[in-house]
């Protein structure tokens, strides 16, 4: 009896640890997005300060390519939109994961109690 519960506890614990790993992976992905958002916001600010006399170049590989200011602005705006969307997506994902690991913690706690009880019974019998 106690052994069966112990096995279950072990497998649940492994599942939980895997889940925590996923959470931290998503966390760091989110942080990376945050950094990209900041950088793109800075670029947007700079581009907004320019006038038509300034020439904008885009670095593609090792080559600088002349680009239209409006086009560059549009690209950055689109990128910001995309990053914000991604952050939102990760936000909901993380919330969901948080909820799931909360539930999992409860399952683990009750399993642990069950295991302790079973162990106590086994000792009592002997």
């Amino acid at each position, binding site marked *: 009896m106690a052994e069966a519960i112990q096995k279950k506890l072990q497998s649940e614990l492994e599942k939980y640890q895997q889940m925590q790993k996923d959470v931290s992976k998503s966390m760091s992905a989110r942080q990376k997005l945050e950094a990209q958002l900041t950088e793109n916001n800075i670029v947007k600010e700079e581009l907004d300060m320019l006038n038509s006399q300034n*020439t904008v170049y885009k670095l*593609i590989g090792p080559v*600088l390519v002349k680009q239209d200011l409006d086009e560059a602005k549009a690209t950055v705006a689109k990128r910001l939109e995309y990053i914000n969307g991604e952050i939102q997506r990760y936000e909901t994902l993380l919330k969901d994961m948080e909820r799931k690991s909360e539930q999992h913690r409860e399952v683990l706690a009750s399993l642990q109690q069950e295991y302790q009880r079973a162990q106590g019974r086994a000792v009592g019998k002997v």
Partner: protein
Amino acid sequence: MAVNLTELSLPQLEGLKSQLEQETEFLTSSIGQLKVVQTKYVEAKESLSVLNKSNEGKELLVPLTSSMYVPGTLNDVEHVLVDVGTGYYVEKNVEDTKEFFRRKIDFLTKQIEKIQPALQEKHTMKQAVIEVMNMKLQQLHSQQTSQSSMTKA
């Protein structure tokens, strides 16, 4: 903080201390990084002063690689290309570029000023935790010695 430090147990204090240590370390390295970037901007801004009318048309050596240079002449002392981030470069005149660097340096100064008080706060908190830990350890020690002397007696 609402929690009274003296009510925490030694292992809890130990945990709190290492957490605060991590946080101070993170903040210190952040400030360090910001300062490095700031120095880069300051240097870039200073190097702009070479681009003036009296240097126009002068000869200079252009680095093709870090170990090979080719001769060239300084044709344009009015325009520079500035990296504004995410692969975008903008052609600006020297005055605007100086303004750009000034803005960046100001921005970084503000960020550093934002972090500094947080770091200070964490530091004081860590100090307080260490103090309480020492106190508890001493208490424990005196208890033990008084106990052992009692058993001897």
